[in-house]
Structure formats: C-alpha cells, structure tokens
C-alpha cells in the first residue's frame, strides 16, 4: 500500500472550499442537518471553518442523495466524502503528541499490532509472574483475577494508559478548537451540544433516518450507533463502579451475576456486540460513493476492537470459573489495553471533535445568516 503524505494535504481543504462555495450558493440542504445552517453564517471558508464543518457532519449521506450537483454533474459535489477526508485530516493536524499523528494514517494496522503485542505481553506476564500451570488453573471467588495479576499492577497499567489517552485527547481537541476558530463557551452551548450528541439529532435527517446504501432513508445506523455509544458508557460505568467497590468497600472482583457491576457490564457488553456488528454490516453495505476509502481502515479497526472487547469480556464472564479464565483474562485485558492506547489516534476521537463542533454550532446559532438581503 502506498504511504500517504505525512503533511497537511491542502488539496483536501481546497476541494472542500470549492464544494462549500457551491453549497452556499444553493442552500437547498439547509433543513437536513447542522452543517448547512452553519455554512450559511459565512461567505468564505478558512481551513479552520472547513474542519469545523467537516466535524459537524454526521456522514448521514442525505445531502448526497438530495444534491442536484453530485457526479456525473460537472460541479461534482460530494459533501459526505470530502468531509470524511477532511475529518481525518483534522484529527491528524491536531494530534498530540505530534510525533504520533502519522498513526492516524495506519490506524488499522497499528491497532492490530498493538492488540497482538498487548495480548502476548499479558499472557507472557501472567506466566512470568507465576508458573505456567497457574494460567490454566481454576481460580474462583473474590480476588480470583488478581491471582494472575496483582490489583496494583492492573491499576497502574490501565490507570496509566487511560490517563495518557485522556490527556492526549484533551490536548488534541483543544488544539482543534483553537485552530478551527472556536472561542469562549457558555454552559447552554455545552448542554445543547450534549443533547444533540446524546440523541444523534443530526443523524436522523429530520426524523427520516440517514441514507446508507441508497436514497431510501433508514434509522439503522443511528440505532447501532446508540447501542455502541451507550454500550460503551455502561461498560465504563461498570468499571468505574468496580473501582469504587474495590477501593471503598473492599469488595473484590469477580462479582456475582446480580452485582450492579456485572449487570451494567452485561448490558453494556451486549450493546457493544450489537452496535459495532450492526455498524460494520452497514459499513459493508454502504454506497461507496459517500465514504472515503482513506478512512475505512481506521473505522473498521475501531469497530472490530469494540466488538472484540465485548466478546472477550462476556466470554470471560461465562467461563470465569473454568481453566479458560486465565487465557481469556489475558486476552480481554490485552484488547482493552490496546484499545485505550490507540484511542487518541483513531476513530474514537470523532466523538470529541463532533461534540466540539456541536458546541460551536450552538454558540454560532445566534449569528446572522450571510446574504439574506432579500
């Protein structure tokens, strides 16, 4: 596979600028989502404006199927596709530390490598810490997991990698906010943007759903995205609750099936099975015209990792009292570790960039529209 240039690809910005100029003279799409009303608040588009608009785009495809200027028309407008390219460009431009920015371009490969290495290290670590037999022994009761890896080690490893991901993402999104021309944020902007994020308001094409394989709107992508997003949050809540139980109450994992930690985990894990699987299927069936082939690896890798996280976690739950527990624990922890490590350099960041763009949209919604002389 040819390597892509590791610098700012201004031709993407120039092409997005050309297309937005056409859209701004047309405006037929202004009712479809937030991108087009945001566009109408300006007459010209800086690189930062374009990256803001690109991250406001939910890639629902409605504008592509509604547009009278899509290819073969000579104006060749294809907003979902150019914005998909521009989004990944904006992640790349804002990545922290800068050295890691190129990871975006090979994210699929990096994730696969990271996961493999992490899993191998966990298995190897377990073996190194104990005799190989302990890996395949049956461990039950509170603290069973920690017989393979001490709790402190787990906290240090996962707390460390989690903290790194948080810091890297916060710095990146702040860079994006500033370079794209953000500004001061009000509480109401955060709330309005939060609501739009939580409900995927702009993926519903004004209550008709989004377009996936053709001009027939469906609501499937939104449903699977909700499963994924809320599944992830529930799993996160489960882990957080377990941390509280462990440290404050001294209750050690594994927990009984009726413990809220397990219930949240099972519910979230189910969402993380259904959601990513559905999104992968939708992606497979997607009209190739509306997507960017450049970002496909990153998207598929992220979904696959989420799917593997939930599958290995649920399998661990079912088989935790069997000799398979040791290997499954290593597998699960390895996948989660790799997932966390690669968070700042893959598709995961899209949520934060989109939320930032929605905040700016809420903030700008008070501004006048350009060119309404009549």
């Amino acid at each position, binding site marked *: 596979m040819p390597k892509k240039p590791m610098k700012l690809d201004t031709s993407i910005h120039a092409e997005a600028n050309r297309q937005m100029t056409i859209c701004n003279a047309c405006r037929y799409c202004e009712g479809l989502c937030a991108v087009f009303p945001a566009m*109408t608040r300006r007459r010209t588009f800086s690189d930062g404006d374009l990256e803001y608009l690109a991250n406001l785009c939910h890639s629902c495809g409605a504008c592509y199927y509604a547009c*009278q200027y899509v290819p073969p028309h000579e104006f060749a407008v294809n907003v979902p596709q150019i914005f998909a390219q521009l989004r990944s460009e904006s992640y790349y431009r804002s990545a922290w530390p800068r050295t890691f920015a190129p990871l975006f371009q090979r994210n699929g490969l990096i994730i696969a490598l990271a996961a493999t290495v992490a899993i191998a290290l966990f298995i190897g670590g377990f073996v190194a810490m104990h005799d190989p037999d302990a890996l395949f022994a049956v461990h039950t009761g509170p603290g069973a997991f920690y017989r393979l890896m001490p709790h402190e080690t787990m906290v240090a490893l996962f707390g460390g990698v989690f903290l790194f991901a948080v810091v890297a993402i916060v710095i990146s999104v702040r860079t994006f906010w500033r370079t794209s021309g953000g500004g001061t944020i009000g509480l109401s902007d955060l709330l309005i943007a939060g609501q739009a994020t939580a409900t995927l308001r702009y993926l519903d094409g004004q209550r008709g759903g989004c377009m996936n394989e053709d001009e027939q709107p469906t609501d499937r992508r939104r449903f699977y995205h909700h499963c994924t997003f809320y599944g992830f949050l529930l799993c996160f809540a489960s882990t957080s609750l377990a941390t509280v139980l462990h440290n404050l109450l001294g209750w050690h994992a594994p927990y009984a099936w009726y413990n809220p930690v397990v219930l949240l985990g099972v519910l979230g894990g189910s969402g993380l099975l259904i959601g990513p699987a559905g999104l992968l299927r939708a992606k497979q069936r997607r009209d190739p015209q509306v997507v960017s082939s450049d970002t496909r690896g990153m998207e598929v890798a992220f979904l696959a990792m989420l799917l593997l996280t939930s599958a290995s976690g649920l399998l661990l739950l079912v088989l935790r009292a069997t000799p398979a527990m040791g290997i499954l624990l290593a597998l699960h922890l390895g996948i989660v570790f790799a997932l966390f490590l690669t968070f700042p350099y893959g598709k995961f960041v899209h949520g934060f960039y989109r939320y930032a763009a929605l905040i700016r949209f809420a903030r700008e919604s008070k501004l006048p529209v350009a060119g309404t002389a009549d």
Partner: protein
Amino acid sequence: MTDSDIFNQPYDILIAGGGNAALCAAITAARAGASVLVVEAAPKAMRGGNSRHTRNMRVAHDAGNDILTGPYPVDEYWDDLLRVTGGQTDEQLARLTLDRSKELWDWHQQQGVRFQPSLSGTLSLGRTNAFFLGGGKALLNALYLTAAALGVQVIYEAKVTDLNITEGVFHSAQVQKEGEVFPITAASFVAAAGGFEANIEWLSEYWGEAAQNFLIRGTPYNRGEVLRLLLNKQVQAIGDPKQCHAVAIDGRAPKFDGGIVTRLDCVPFGIVVNKHAERFYDEGEDFWPKRYAIWGRLVAMQPEQVAYAIIDARSVDLFMPSVYPPEQANTIEELAKKFTLDPQRLRTTVEAFNAACRPGTFDHTVHDECHTEGATPPKSHWARPIITPPFYGYPLRPGITFTYLGVKIDAEARIIMHDNKPSPNMFAAGEIMAGNVLGKGYLAGIGMTIGSIFGRIAGQGAAQAKHRPE
C-alpha cells in the same frame, strides 16, 4: 429484469417523462390499479427533468401549518397569478389548479415527500410556498421509491421517438433505447416530458443567432421531442412559442444544468452595462422576484447577449453568496479591462451615474429613496455612487428556465385535438401543458403546482380511460 423484458410487457399506461408531473401521474394511476411504464430520457443520476432543480411548490392554504405561515387564500393566489400573467391564463384550468393546490401538501407527504420548516429567509416565500426538505431531487427520490413500491416500471435513457395516433386516439409509441427501437402498446398515454428549452436549434427558430448565447439553467434533456411529435399529429398548441422564462445568471455558468447556484442577485446594488459599457435599464426598479425575472430578457436583447454588473466594496456582501467569485480591481478602468470593456467609456458611464445619485438613506430591504436624477435610464431605488474600491464585477447572460409553448388540454388533462375535441386516451401534465395556466410571467413555485395537479388528474384519467370501450 432486462430492458427488453420491461419493454415486452403490456401496459395500461405509457408515461413520457420522469419529473414530478410524470411521477404524480404514475403513482396516481398505479394506485388506481393500472400498470404503468415511465420512459425517462435522462440516466437515473440525472432523472426528473427540471423538478431536479426546483425547491418549493406554491400551495393555497387557509391557515398556517408546520411549514407554512399562513393563510394564503385561493383568492390571493388568483390575484398573484393574474398579475404575473396579465390575464393570459385559462381561468377554468387556473382556478382548478389553485383550488386543488390545497390538497398537495397532504398528498405529497403521503407519497413520502417531506417538507422543511421555512428557515433562514433566503427567499421570502415562507407563507406562500412549501419547501421540499433537501430540495427537488429529494422530492423525486421519494416519488420514485413510492412508484417502485407500487410496481411502476421505469426505464432510463429511453426516448419516445414516434407516436401512433389516429383520429385523436393513441395506439402505440416507439421507444428508443441504446439505438434499439421498441414498439410499446398501451391503452393510454401521458405526455409529461417538459418543454424544449434545451433544444437550442428550436429556440433559434424564434430568437435567431441570439439563442446560441443562451445558457439553459435546467436539465439538458428537455428537448421538446414529445411536444414536437404531438404538435405534428393534430394536437392543438397553446402558448406563445417565442416566450421563455429567462433570468440573468452568471455568464460563467455551464451551458446546461447550472441550476440555482448560477443565480446572481447583485443587480440592484450597482449598475449593469452592456458590451459598449452603457447602462440600458433601471437596475433599481423592483425587488426580487420581479427584477430577477425581467433581466434575462433584457440581457438577451443586448448585443452578443452579454452584460456586466458593476458594484463596489460597500455592496459586495449584501446579496446571496455566488458560486463564482467576482472579478475585482482597484480602479474602474482596471475592472473594465478584465471584461474587455472600453475603460474610458466605463469610467464615463460610472461617473455619470455617480453624479446623478441623490443623497438618501440606503436600505436594501425596502424601496428606499436613493435614486438618480438626470441619468438615462434612471435608477429608481438603491442608487449609491460606485466609489469605494475595490470594485467588483459579474458577467451576465440570459439563463433560460423553461418555454411556454405547449399542448392544449381540458380540465381532465385530456389533450385537445385540432377539431377541438379532447383525445379519449391522451393526457398531458407538467411543463408541456403549463402554458394553459401560465400564458406568460412566472410565480415562484407554481410550475410544481401545475405539474402536481395535472399529473394527478392525468394519472386518474389515464387509469379510467383503459376501461373505456373504443
């Protein structure tokens, strides 16, 4: 199913054309139990005629609703129509169109079409016109999906090349697809294939050489071939063949299919000169849409069908963003050179205009008192001296939207023959018959209304006609 499989089936109704009117007819006929074949000249990606470029539909309503502020009573609609047509309308058909336009909002929604709340005020039509969510192509997508679900067959890149008509009765048609000709027999025929504005040779019959310089705003597939066939087969014509709806658009627009983005709305903010750098009409006469609709014809009558709108830095942000950037210069002479105008003459024209501007409060939202005194032609409103650099200019060309010549029909959308009798099984809908209602002028969104109303009537009539003994 292959093309020849589709062609080899029997159909109750053959519909020529694939725009809003054709689909309204197809859906209505299919719902009435008829089998329908739609023959569309364009490929799928470009289907839908000029409906692809439309955005809204003018509908009467007694009270506001989700998308329209209201009310817009039929009487007011009628007054609006009389004003733009100067009375050149078939009152019976026009009244029918306006009365029944009230049904369209519900009917289109039942076919899956969605409307959007009136938004930014790009056009001040929030009271009178229902806006399609996503525009005309989104409307077409919804209609095509519904038609397909009802079993309507659609064949693209296919043209009706001949019609077998005897004594006003349709028997069969020849349809050409990829060089092959297929005979299609159907119990009735609906002509919904648009006008002839994309047929420059035909336009030249009335406009001479000037037609070569026209830009066609809409689909390149409206070549009037079905209209020509009908007019050659004892069908009565209606409408002035010389009339076409022309607006002044950006002279750099594509020859065909430029659509809405080629609109230029800068005329009232400056002056417009011809290739001799001379003004020729009152740029401040009126607001959009009246001003918009007259300038195409004005430019068409200038030498080489070209004109240039000149504004200064104070005005450049006051109108809708344009698709092509304006030419820009720090002096009038420099700007003139960019358009190959005589710099001295443009300077003289601008200075004469500037000297004639009377001081006043500029307000582009009303008919303000900024006007000229002593200038020929005068500028009635929004006249401000062009003095603040940089100066900007846009080239203008006539952009043809549609033609008025069509086929005469009755209130059942039946085509009227030379003997004044309606055909029992030939119907027309859309631009091909819009001249019955719209003898001249234009009312934003009424084209879609006429197409929808007569499409539905034609579909109903064609479905019933198949049961009539012949």
